[in-house]
């Protein structure tokens, strides 16, 4: 079923009296989008907590823009509000769980909000405005596995976009023929996959044999100027030519765009060397134990004409080696503290991916307490049984590399570098539990 719902946006005063207006709007919008009651309840709860917090800390007369967008499998609510009125410190969401003294009630509200939705994060930062986004996904039934058709190496393979029933067939094959570590968990919910593909965010191409059986596929997400992640290619009949053809077709689809690159964390190794460059690897923790390492592969889409990156001297050697190894033309500019006064308080935002027991931390403000603040984040995340902790440092932003010494001393290690994935290259640090704390 194709459901096209228009986005809505409302300008309204940031005043608690307005709460019924915004809650009513979000609730009705979610209902029109077909979200079920339980999900709507959680979404509205989160919106209420955020709006209460924002209106309590705003200045008289300030106006906020609320936007709701529907992506078939999820609903996104954006709060765009003036930056100056806010105590950003409260957005160090996770820190409050672990501190001994009772968190302030208002900050407790933010915590509740962050736990009721799949994602809560600052998506865009303007000079004078912030955009806080929340994403609530619909709940989908888990797949029921069904017997599969026997597949033989196809004589003729056709690659094309897929119908919903074919996507279900693809998921059945994937779940039963491919190792679990090779695909993301959303493939366990074929209904969700179909809904994800209904928007612009995800795309899929499937391969069919002469009997019109699904024999493989490749899925990718991201578009325009964002780094694309691809899942696959997956092939169910051992036909390597099909894998190559799927990879080529995927690249043909995104080739003529400004997508900086395509990252693959879920493909089979044989194929990777001829299409990708190894970027590095991350550790995978399950229930606190390091269980494996996962390689990340990358390929640029366009010719790299070089750029400048900011870096702290503590990490210059690592970067130089990395850039030289991959022939990436970069001019490294060092940032050094010259004794200038800092903000007292640092602010980090966190994005949760509970399916993967994973958290991504992003710096929002650099401050004197960065090391302490980071340690508190880690403590509270570990208490929540989240052990795959990443921090993204944007080397295109001159203030971010100043965090480097604090990251290194609190147990983070650089693990991956994604060219052009932020304002500049994005350096990913992972917290390695074994070494610190």
């Amino acid at each position, binding site marked *: 079923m194709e459901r096209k719902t228009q986005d809505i946006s409302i300008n309204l005063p940031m005043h608690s009296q307005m709460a019924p207006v915004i809650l009513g709007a979000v609730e009705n919008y979610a209902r029109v989008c077909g979200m079920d009651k339980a999900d709507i309840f959680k979404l509205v709860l989160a919106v209420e907590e955020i709006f209460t917090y924002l209106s309590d800390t705003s200045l008289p007369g300030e106006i906020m823009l609320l936007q709701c967008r529907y992506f078939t499998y999820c609903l996104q609510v954006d709060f765009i509000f003036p930056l100056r009125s806010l105590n950003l410190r409260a957005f160090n969401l996770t820190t409050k769980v672990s501190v001994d003294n009772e968190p302030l009630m208002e900050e407790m509200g933010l915590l509740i909000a962050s736990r009721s939705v799949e994602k809560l994060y600052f998506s865009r930062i303007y000079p004078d405005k912030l955009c806080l986004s929340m994403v609530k996904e619909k709940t989908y039934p888990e797949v029921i596995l069904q017997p599969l058709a026997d597949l033989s190496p196809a004589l003729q393979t056709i690659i094309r976009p897929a119908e919903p029933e074919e996507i279900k067939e693809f998921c059945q094959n994937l779940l039963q023929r491919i190792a679990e570590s090779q695909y993301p968990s959303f493939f366990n919910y074929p209904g969700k996959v179909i809904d994800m593909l209904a928007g612009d965010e995800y795309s899929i191409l499937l391969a069919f044999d002469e009997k019109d059986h699904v024999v493989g596929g490749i899925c990718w997400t991201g578009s325009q100027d964002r780094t694309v992640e691809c899942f696959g290619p997956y092939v169910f009949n051992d036909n390597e030519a099909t894998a190559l053809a799927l990879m080529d077709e995927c690249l043909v689809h995104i080739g*003529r765009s400004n997508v900086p690159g395509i990252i693959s964390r879920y493909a089979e190794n044989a194929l990777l060397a001829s*299409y990708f460059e190894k970027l590095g690897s991350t550790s995978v923790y399950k229930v606190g134990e390091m269980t494996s390492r996962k390689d990340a592969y990358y390929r640029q889409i366009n010719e*790299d004409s070089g750029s400048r990156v900011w870096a702290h001297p503590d990490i210059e050697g690592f970067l130089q080696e990395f850039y030289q190894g991959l022939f990436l033309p970069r001019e490294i500019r060092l940032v050094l503290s010259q004794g200038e006064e800092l903000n007292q308080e640092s602010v980090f935002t966190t994005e949760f991916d509970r399916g993967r027991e994973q958290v991504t931390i992003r710096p929002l403000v650099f401050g004197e307490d960065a090391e302490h603040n980071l340690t508190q984040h880690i403590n509270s995340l570990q208490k929540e049984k989240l052990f795959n902790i990443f921090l993204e440092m944007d080397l295109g932003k001159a203030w971010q590399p100043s965090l480097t010494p604090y990251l290194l001393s609190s147990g983070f290690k650089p693990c991956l570098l994604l060219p052009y994935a932020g304002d500049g290259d994005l350096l990913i640090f992972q917290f390695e539990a074994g070494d610190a704390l």
Partner: protein
Amino acid sequence: MNVPKLDRLVPSYIKGFEAYIPSKPDPELKKLFGCKQLYRLNNNENPLGPPPAAQEILHRFETHRAAIYPSGDSYYLRDKLAEKYKLHPDQILVGNGANEVITFAIKAFCEAGDNIITADKTFAVYEWVAIFSGYEARLVPLKDFCFDDEEMLAQIDARTKILFICNPNNPTGTYWNQEKLCRFLDRIDGKQIVVVDEAYCEFVEKEDFPDGIALIERYPNLVVFRTFSKMYGLAGLRIGYLAGSLEVVNIMRRACVVYSVNTLAQETALLALDDPEHIQRTNTLVKKEKAYLYRELTRLGLPLVMHEGNFVMIKLPISDTLAYRQLMACGVMVRSMTGFRYPNYIRITIAQHEAMEALIQALEAIL
């Protein structure tokens, strides 16, 4: 000052379109990639430069003339081209490179809801201009590296205004011969404009290669593009032109930007046309170096797509964008072809032997 309300100001087709980012100037690239020398094999330029008579004009240019506007419609150059091709001067429009005349054609004939048809793996500017002007670009997959006439015809509907054929095709070098082009034009039967982009026609020595300009009289809906950037070695001066029937060109003139072609370009182009030996010399070099590349690339086991034109495509066993960076570090600049929808291919401009040797050495080093 308030930030402009871009959300409201910008049309949706522009919002969805990504700007093309050209490569940086050589000194910047050399610094970034740490190479002392750089062979530019990425833009299909002529390594011999402009013909000698044209070079002379550049040397003799009187600097005070820079203050004076050029001829607004390239008056003498059109006269010269008309004489050469037996056309009326008004059948020609000169532009700031063939790139600019692409916009004349699309702006003159398309309006909201219209579409153009071209191939998926060809020179991208037809597609780009259509899209960022708000029109649909229907892309027909190449068949055996060649424009697919049947499928292009099948894609035509009531809103199709222009079909673009690149002959020979950049980047595959394949071409439609006289018979195939005429058959296609017969089937279009004047219902749409057919543009044949002959940017590389001077490099083709095949007997059956059609001379588009000579067909204009028979097919008044045919428009031919040519450029001085490739064979004539004037890419830096930006000059190209289109030719068509008087009726059709009179329409396109309304969408044409006057004064966009500078004095030096007009005068140099005029003299460049007079030197058949330059074409000879260039084609001898291209032929010789193509043979060299064929030998060497075959020895390296690299498949290649080599037909007409001063370029070849090479299929690599690694990512083409990685190869681009590695080759840059060796001082060789190629065109990576993922952007042309040919993942893991690179395109090489045929150049002087020294550059071809540098390419082969670099490929040996990186593979």
